[in-house]
Structure formats: structure tokens, C-alpha cells
């Protein structure tokens, strides 16, 4: 009865959210795409230039650098975060003492904001490197591993929680049956647990992959692109192009559109690929 009463008002109830969605997402998104075809200084005073921005974008060596640097960073951190996260989840589902305490401790870094983490790790890493007469910004690879460590520290706890939920959902009968059939620990892991937690893996790779690609605040706080923009990930490169270079606002916007497409394509591909491997219980 309730449903019947409310149904005619569905549009009315949805309206506020819908309007907010239009103002907060659809309009800026459309405007953003429009602006990527324009030359402008302020966003409300733009001149149409067609595909010029997209052509100029690839003439910028720093963008190309940021592109593969980000891809490499994403690859390394997705692998490390998921392997470590999964390993810790396995450990913490064995019923060892203090499991809950450890889970909390591992999860906690995730509650701290990226900027704060960035500065904290900058202090730690610089403190260690100073002993050897170097700094984090000595070369882009110091910054690279710095960011990998930082992201691992921050995200392992998060994916760990998801994996723990996945592992605990593996039916006990399955494990028992495997044992009775004489499966080794390795076989149980590969043939039973991994296929059963595939949905968790899908989610975790999706989260870590998109997070790594979109990483901005940790990058800003840890290295700010130093030395000379070579440790710049894509998001920071786009920001710096838009705000840092006079006359490059349109190009920055074009980069942002391309960035969106790249992240979208990669994320969807990954979802489809890992989703296929999931088994129905």
C-alpha cells in the first residue's frame, strides 16, 4: 500500500538528488569536455580550438613521462598491496591470539588523510636517507619507491579487511573435503581459497588500481613532483599543467579527459577479466 501511495511521487523525491547530481557531476563533466576543446584563461571565457589541445598534449614530454611512470607505479603497487594484503588476511584468519588487535592496527593507517601520511613518510624517509647524504627527491626512483611504500602502508589494511571477509566466507565443508582428499596447504590455497575469494580480488584490484592511477595528495605531499616534475603522477601533472603553465589551461583540460578515458578503460577491462574468474557458490 505504501508503495502505491509513494509511486507517483517518485520523481519528486528523486528530484533533489537528481538536481545535485546534475550540478555536481553532469554539468562540470560536460563543461570539462567542452573546455578541453578550447583555449581559455578563465573557464567562462573560452574560445573553441578543436583538437589542437589533444595534439599539443602529446608534444609535452612530461606528460608522456607521467603516463608511463603512473602506469608503472600502478602496476607495482597493485601487485604489492594485494599480495601483502592477502597474506596478512590469511595470517589473521588462522585464529592466532590478538587477531582483532592486529586487524585494527593494520587498518588504522587507512583512516589518516593522504596529505598527512605524505608528510609523515617524507620525514621518515628523509631522516633515513640523510644518514647517507641523500634526500627523497634525489631522483624520481627514490620518490617512486617512497610512494609505493606509502601506498602499501595505507592500503594494505583496507584490502586486508575485504580479503578477511572473503576468506571467512569460504565454506568450511569445502576446506574439510579438500583436506580429506589429501590436498596440501598450497593446493588448498590455489584450488579452493583463491577461486572462492575471487569476488574480493576483483574488488581489491579495482580499488587499488583506480586509487593508484588517481593518486594525487600523497604524491603532492611526498615529493610534489620533485626533482623537476619527474616524480609527477598523472593527476599532479594535470593539475600543474592547468594551474602552473600560462596558456596551457586547455591542454590541462584535454589531459584530464584523456586521463578519464584511460582510467575508465583500464578499470572496466580489469573488472571484466577478474569477474570472469569468479565462481558461483
Amino acid at each position: 500500500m505504501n508503495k502505491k501511495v509513494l509511486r507517483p511521487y517518485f520523481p519528486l523525491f528523486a528530484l533533489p538528488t537528481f538536481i545535485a547530481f546534475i550540478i555536481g557531476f553532469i554539468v562540470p563533466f560536460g563543461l570539462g569536455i567542452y573546455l578541453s576543446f578550447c583555449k581559455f584563461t578563465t573557464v567562462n571565457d573560452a574560445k573553441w580550438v578543436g583538437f589542437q589541445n589533444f595534439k599539443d598534449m602529446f608534444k609535452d614530454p612530461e606528460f608522456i613521462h607521467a603516463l608511463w611512470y603512473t602506469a608503472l607505479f600502478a602496476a607495482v603497487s597493485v601487485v604489492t598491496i594485494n599480495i601483502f594484503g592477502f597474506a596478512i588476511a590469511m595470517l589473521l584468519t588462522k585464529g592466532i591470539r590478538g587477531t582483532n588487535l592486529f586487524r585494527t592496527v593494520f587498518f588504522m593507517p587507512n583512516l589518516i588523510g593522504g596529505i598527512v601520511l605524505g608528510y609523515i613518510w617524507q620525514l621518515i624517509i628523509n631522516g633515513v636517507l640523510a644518514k647517507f647524504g641523500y634526500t627523497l627527491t634525489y631522483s624520481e626512483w627514490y620518490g617512486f619507491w617512497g610512494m609505493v611504500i606509502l601506498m602499501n602502508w595505507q592500503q594494505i589494511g583496507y584490502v586486508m579487511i575485504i580479503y578477511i571477509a572473503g576468506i571467512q566466507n569460504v565454506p568450511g565443508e569445502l576446506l574439510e573435503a579438500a583436506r580429506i582428499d589429501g590436498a596440501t596447504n598450497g593446493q588448498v590455497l590455489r584450488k579452493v581459497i583463491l577461486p572462492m575469494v575471487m569476488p574480493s580480488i576483483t574488488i581489491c584490484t579495482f580499488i587499488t588500481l583506480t586509487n593508484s592511477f588517481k593518486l594525487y595528495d600523497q604524491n603532492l605531499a611526498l615529493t610534489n613532483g620533485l626533482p623537476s616534475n619527474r616524480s609527477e603522477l598523472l593527476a599532479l601533472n594535470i593539475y600543474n599543467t592547468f594551474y602552473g603553465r600560462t596558456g596551457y589551461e586547455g591542454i590541462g583540460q584535454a589531459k584530464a579527459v584523456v586521463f578519464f578515458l584511460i582510467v575508465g578503460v583500464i578499470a572496466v577491462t580489469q573488472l571484466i577479466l577478474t569477474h570472469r574468474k569468479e565462481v558461483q557458490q
Partner: protein
Amino acid sequence: MKNLKKGIALAMAASLSVCAFAGCQSGGETSGTATESTGGESTAASQADTGSAEGGKVYYLNFKPEQADQWVELAKTYTEQTGVEVKVDTAASGTYEATLKAEMAKENAPTLFQVNGPVELASWKDYCYNLKDTSLYTNLKSDDFALIDGEDVKGVAYVIETYGIIYNKTLLNKYFETDGAVVSSVDEINNFDTFKSVVEDIQAKKDDLGIQGAFTSSGMDSSSDWRFKTHLANLPIYYEYKADNIKSTSAIKGTYLDNYKAIWDLYIHNATCEPTMISGKTGEDAASEFALGEAIFYQNGTWAYGDCINNGMSDEDLGMLPIYIGGEGEENQGLCTGSENYWCVNSKASEADIQATLKFLDWVITSDEGRDMLANQMGFVTPFTTFDDGYQADNALIKAANEYIAAGKTAVSWNFSTIPSEKWKDNVGAALLDYAQGTGDWSAVQTAFVDGWATEYAAANAGTESPDA
């Protein structure tokens, strides 16, 4: 019953959407006076209504965070006297360009903003009101202090600054008293070779002098790298322009790059830290090293005075030397003096707002309150004739600058305003850092300096984007 429920549901839905609409509406309407979230901002509008109704209002987007509070105070005084609303907003350090871009897109855009020279002017010139017939321009001492685009005066400098090598007088005198000091008085340092031997001798005696190094760290963090990729780079550019008798160029030759290398070597090898550490050193690091007496020499300008004093130094500690790089006739070289702060009035603001802004600026440079604030409180050396009768800023560093002029030395002009783009500076800075760390060699600096100039000049002038129609 059914009707009641229906009624309640309708009412709730209606009120929800009304709230949402009201939310957007009020946001749009009050954006002029509402407090926005852009850094330290305040509205000095005690009589906002009367002010805006009659003669327009002023919105100044200030560049210098050091003087943020003083501008607000000055705006308040003006509002009290005239009833005209003056809003002062200061962009957080290093975010001026970003803030300006965002603010300019708003309905109540800044009526008064600033650009840092001809290169930045290029992107804002469509927004710059012609100041030719204003008191701001007519009171200007020389056209050198204006940004002139064809016939139009697009920007007027409001502060003249000077940089060089600031030194700690007390510590330097201590050095002069050591055995075998290369020179015995700072007056004897008037060329690169002498300066170099003094620096190297100080570095050798650093433990006796109780310092960490002759120079403060040459930090290549973005808070400090402009001291080298821009200000220090000005010297080789200056000497090349002087030798070729030109004021700007589309292709620099790099005649004085060896001198640039020599002074850079001197900076990085006689400093408080190893060259491999400089990528992470900040402007504050250098400032505190200098103020704490860990180093004697510190390349910076008159704007650093406040930092030095706030960190416990006194006027007697401070002196400034020209940056000698070994150019011809450098015995007569003075400090580097110029401006990179130009006021521009937003030509896209309403006529009433433009007039209000011009009136405000006129008041700032002619009234006692305005002149006192600029010269005495903010410590600005201004290029306006109206300040000549007793409104001269006075601090140890400005005094040092004036002494060099009085002694007949030629001030080095700020030619870095002719550098084709920020990108050029970044590339030179990157190459300088690589060279210092040993991860690259000097030829990369040469490439960035010479070839980079040509490419960036071409990009900036041909327009990588479509030409302005």
C-alpha cells in the same frame, strides 16, 4: 487516512526540493559578501549596502601573504572614510595564479589583481584596463615601472625590490679577523675572483668560525629554486644583453654560461650541506640557516628582511653584496633591482567598480594613511613620486641597496621578466639540480638555457594554441 498519507508525502517531497532549490539560490546570490574558502580572506564592508549601491566596489586579490593583514587594515580605513566596500583576499603562498584563475571566473571577480611581468601579462592582457590616464601612471617615476603593451599601460609596479647576496655582518667581520683572511674589509670584495677566494677560505675555516658553511643550502625545492633558476640566471642574461646592447631576445646565446657555472659551483660546494641534499632543501631551510648563523652568505632580496628580523637578527647583522659572476666591469656592478609585482585593474569589471578601484588606488598612493601603510608598515620601496616627501621605506637591506646606488654603482635590471616562459625556468632548474647532484652534466644546463629559450620563445609567441582572433 489514505489522503492524509498522500498529503504528508507530498508535503515532504515538496519541502525537500524547496530546500535544495533554496540552497542553490542563496549560494548564487550572496557570493559577493559571503565568506569563501580561499585562504585568509575578510570583507572590510561595514557599510556594504551604501557602498555598492552608489559607486561600485573594490576587490583586491593580493599576492603577498606577508602583507595580508596590513592590506585588510588599509581597506578598512578606506571603507570607514568613504563608505566604499573594499574586499581584500590573499592567495596562499604559491597559489596566486590558481586562485586568480578561479576568482576571475566568478561573478564578482577581483577588480584589482597583479601580474609578475610581461610573460604573465600575455595571458591576462585581455583583462587589463588601460591605466594611461590614471593617477597611478601619471605619478609613476619612469616607464620602466610600467607594463606597456603598444599604446596601453596594462600594469603599474607598486613595489621595487632588490636582491643580491645577503651576508651576516657580524660573522663576516669575525672572519676578517682570522689569520690569513683573504681580505680585511667587505669593501674589497668587488669582483668574482676575490669573492670566490673569500668564500673558499671561509669554507675551509668553517669550524673555527662556528658555522656549517659559507653559503646557506641552495635548496631546489620549489620554495627556493627560483633563487637560482630565475634570480641567479638573471646575471648571465643581464651581461649578455649588456654586451649585445639589447633589451630582450628571441634567442639567447649563452655567452656568460661559464660564469653561471662558476657561481653555481661556488654556491653548491661551499654550503651548509652536500650537493646531493639540495633537492629537498626549502626556502625556510636557507632562511633559518642564515638567521641562526650557520652560514654567512644567503642569496635573497629585500623581502627577506622580515624573516631575518623575526628570526632574531638585528639591523647591524645585515648587509648585501652584489652577485659577482665575473662579467666585464663588474667592479661597478650594483645590486639587482626591479619589480615583478604589477597592479592591473580588471577591465571586465563594471565601470562603477573600475572607477571605485582607481579611486581606491589613488587614495593608497596619495593619502597619508595609504603612504604610511605601504612605506612604513609594509616596508615597500615604491616607484611613485607621491612618496618622495618623507615616505621612504627603511630597513637594513634597503639601506644597503641605496648605498650602492649612492656610490654610483650600476644596478642590475631584472631581465628575467623577459624569460620566455615558466617552463624555461623549470628546465634550467632541473638541469642545474642534476648537475649539482652529479646525475647530469653541465651541457644539459646549456641546452636548457640556449635551445630551451628558442623553443619556449617560439611556443610563447607563435602561440601553441590558436592565435588571438
